[in-house]
């Protein structure tokens, strides 16, 4: 097990280097030097500041040295200061992460709680009414643009019915509420964003769960279980589900990039002050240090997600564990 983890860690090194090179390449796509744009946008920037920035990015140096510096700063998680308010980029990111993380965690849990039963029951009753309905629902789920869904939900629940607030994460009179009032206020504000962020992955995951369960249900040991006369519930939930759910673990890791990208869209629509909104604002105002930081961090998070999923999978499935040992 430990061996496997170590081996897997080693394979991460070239990927991390690759991510740094790709990101470095993206910075250099900017027209001219990043400092030139800054200069145009903000006439008040003194020559001194400009020099300082040029030094920060090392833009007057050969490209190899520039890259080396970028790598060194990456290692220290130093992404420089925002072009907009001069605050260190990492600080800005750190204060935005909790809300985004919270929304995404809740929606991941929601996805699992809904998608797994859907997948299981579809596979069990293959070709029957429920399965057919769900197949159609999955296609619908894949085809609905999240931002459109968000617009329609806001229109229905906030604008027409006045049940939920239109945007933001808390009401103006938030401070006057007691604990339960505050909790309720958060829930009222976040229910739509969470639903929207869960929606797309829901279709994918339930489809995936169905396929996985379907394959397991056609294995010999399940037939044996039937033959032994075990009750169906027991077969489905004890014997089949355990094995069918394994591949789904990896999907959590794979769904991270989608969730990060999705955050930009729903946070912008619902005006939620998280990472996604920060990214959107940075893109709109061409705040390059923030954009680069988000890009690199999201890539690392994806890498980490895949890595953890692999480890979890290996932990859960002895075949992989022993297979790795043999090598």
């Amino acid at each position, binding site marked *: 097990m430990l061996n496997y983890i170590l081996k897997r860690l080693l394979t991460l090194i*070239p*990927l991390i280097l*690759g*991510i740094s090179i*790709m990101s470095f390449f*993206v*910075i250099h*796509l*900017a*027209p001219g030097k990043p400092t030139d744009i800054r200069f145009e946008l903000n006439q008040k920037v003194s020559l001194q500041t400009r020099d300082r920035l040029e030094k920060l990015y090392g833009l007057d140096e050969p490209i190899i040295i520039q890259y080396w510096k970028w790598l060194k700063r990456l290692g220290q998680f130093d992404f420089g200061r925002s072009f907009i308010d001069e605050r260190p980029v990492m600080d800005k990111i750190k204060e935005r992460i909790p809300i985004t993380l919270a929304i995404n965690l809740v929606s991941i849990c929601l996805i699992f709680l809904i998608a797994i039963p859907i997948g299981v029951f579809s596979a069990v009753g293959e070709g029957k009414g429920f399965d057919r309905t769900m197949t159609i629902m999955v*296609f*619908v789920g*894949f*085809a*609905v*643009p*999240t*931002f*459109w869904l968000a*617009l*329609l939900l*806001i*229109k229905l629940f906030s*604008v027409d019915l006045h049940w939920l607030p239109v945007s933001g994460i808390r009401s103006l009179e938030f401070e006057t509420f007691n604990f339960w009032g505050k909790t309720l206020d958060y829930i009222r504000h976040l229910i739509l964003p969470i639903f929207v962020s869960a929606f797309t992955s829901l279709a994918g995951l339930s489809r995936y769960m169905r396929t996985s369960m379907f394959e397991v249900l056609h294995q010999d040991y399940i037939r044996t279980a039937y033959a032994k006369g075990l009750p169906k519930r027991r077969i489905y939930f004890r014997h089949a589900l355990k094995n069918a759910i394994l591949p789904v673990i990896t999907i959590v890791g794979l769904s*991270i*990039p*989608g969730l*990060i*990208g*999705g955050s*930009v*869209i729903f946070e*912008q*629509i619902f005006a939620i002050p998280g990472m996604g909104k920060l*990214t*959107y604002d*940075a*893109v*709109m105002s*061409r705040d*390059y240090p923030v*954009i*680069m930081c*988000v*890009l690199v961090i*999201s*890539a690392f998070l*994806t*890498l980490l997600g*895949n890595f953890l999923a692999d480890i979890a999978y290996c932990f859960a499935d002895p075949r992989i564990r022993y297979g790795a040992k043999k090598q």
Partner: protein
Amino acid sequence: MMSRFFNHKLALCGLVIILVISAFSFSAPLICRYQPDDIDIGKYLMPPTSEHWLGTDLLGRDLFSRIAYGGRISLSVGFIAVGLMAVVGICFGALAGYYAGKIDELIMRFVDIMFCFPRFILILAIISMLGPNIFIVMAVIGLTSWMGISRLVRAEILSLKERDFVLAARASGVNDFKIIIRHLIPNSMGPVFVSATLGVAAAILLESSLSFLGLGVQPPTPSWGNILMDAKACLGVAWWLSVFPGLAIFFTVLGYNLLGEGLRDLLVPRK
């Protein structure tokens, strides 16, 4: 083959949806009574009437025409992006699969690295550097989505190149380039067609998301995404502005997904 396709209800349904929407968009000048950018301030935010079938927007522009003309843009972006994605994916996949060894290792590591970047964030970063316009959107969507295809093509070619017909071709002195172009790539197109069809759906969704955020196709050129961006401002008063363009995206994406899944059933042999 064809009869199997016509018996596959989902695929057929998808194809019909795609044909209807494409016909609607590309015959826009024939069926639309207004130009998509004809401003008529006197008739702003009119609900659907017999004169303006789907109503008008904030500037009094006819929504029906805007959706029809916007469809041309959105569909073209989807197609060109996918064309680019297929070409790049096939080239890398074929090189990796055929030459194996170091080239393969290098290309596949590059694919892994590209997969690490959340696509939407990478696209946003690149667009923020280069500035949003329709060609950059096409290029960026295509160049950030070829990895899946190159993995598929590589896998196909790895197994194909051991087959007798490739040996025969090589024995008769055909050079590598011709073997790849004439024999290997055509035989590995099945899964590529499936991915490309699904890819059109994904590209249209991406383009509309970007345009909705104001980072894709720029006004006054209409695209389904940026019509919805305008709709956001009039959410309370004009339901038709947000409902119809969204339906257009929805049905187009649905059509390509249905067709793609249908093609998968038909073209990709199951285990």
